[in-house]
């Protein structure tokens, strides 16, 4: 089924099972790569992909036909991740504030996994900058789409991406990478 994501979402709303197959086939790898790019944890990424599909299913009627699909999908995906981080942090240490969420640690990709080429450098970025880079570069989203998905302005996203690139460049220089 070679349709735009927007058309597939509309068909899903109408109860079309073929649209579900096409959406899952097309979006699951993207979502997995999104979560992997943020947390570098393959198991957590798989769980988050499943949770995100469940939430997309629950929130399906909130998609307005004709609206861009990616901001709708990623707004829900990033909230799924944030909720999961909050829950994990609570379970681990009791109550914690949002600004002290656990730092992610980069681990090499397990056998059979496609490695993220700039994984170690991404892991050193602040969470908001990492998210902006993953969405724009790894997911191929436009600045406008990222701004909508994250509930911020295009200028703010541009600034985060710019600062992230500067930091990545500096880190790469520091480590003798090209």
């Amino acid at each position: 089924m070679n349709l735009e994501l927007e058309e597939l979402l509309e068909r899903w709303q109408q109860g079309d099972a073929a649209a579900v197959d096409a959406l899952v086939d097309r979006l699951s790898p993207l979502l997995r790569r999104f979560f992997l790019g943020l947390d570098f944890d393959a198991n957590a990424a798989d769980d988050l992909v499943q949770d995100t599909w469940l939430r997309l299913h629950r929130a399906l009627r909130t998609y307005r036909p004709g609206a861009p699909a990616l901001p709708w999908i990623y707004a829900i995906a990033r909230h799924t991740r944030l909720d999961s981080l909050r829950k994990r942090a609570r379970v681990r240490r009791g109550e914690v504030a949002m600004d002290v969420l656990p730092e992610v640690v980069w681990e090499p990709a397990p056998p059979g996994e496609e490695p993220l080429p700039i994984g170690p450098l991404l892991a050193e970025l602040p969470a908001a900058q990492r998210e902006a880079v993953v969405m724009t570069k790894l997911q191929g989203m436009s600045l406008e789409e990222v701004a909508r998905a994250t509930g911020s302005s295009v200028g703010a996203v541009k600034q985060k991406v710019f600062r992230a690139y500067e930091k990545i460049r500096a880190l790469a220089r520091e480590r003798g990478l090209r």
Partner: protein
Amino acid sequence: VNSGQDVKAMLKAGLRPRRPLAPEWVYALGFTLLALAPALLLLLTSDTPGWAARAGAWAAAPPVLSAVLAALAGLRLARAMTPGSPTVAALPWLSVWLVLLAGALALSTSRAHAPAWGSDEQHCFDSGLIVGAFVLLPVFLLLRRGAVLRINATGAAAGVLGGLAGLLALESSCDNPAFWHIALSHVTVPLALPLLVLLLLLALSLLRRLRLR
């Protein structure tokens, strides 16, 4: 592959046609009309029109400004119902509204007497909050169908909308033209109601967290 099949099976198990939300302008218009309804009703039924109806041209500015802000709050709420919609920054608009409102009130109200907080002020403030709460309820019921993300910001915007409904109702029914009366007991309503809603939401989320521990 298995996980993909699981997801597909799960989604197909719950597959049924869903009626999508109406376009955002429909909700934005609905929310705005809801905010204006009590004021219009009072204007049509009241024997004693409010101070704004009897004063000069500048006195029309506060209700008009409030109606514009109600439309923006309505748009903010309508967009909050769809994740990934462009956001309307409510705070800068609220600041602009406050500055313009202060100017309009200074030009159009009487400063002949500046009463201390009294029963008149208390009565107007309470009435504004009650009207606002009555508008908040249907807004909340509508928002339950959407607004799955950013609950606090959505709650605050709903509070602003309810507060504006209260303010507009007071402007169309209260005949006291004193600047301090209007500043203390009318304008405070759209500022107090969102704060109350926010406090309620924060208390509820704290309770939920305590229960989860």
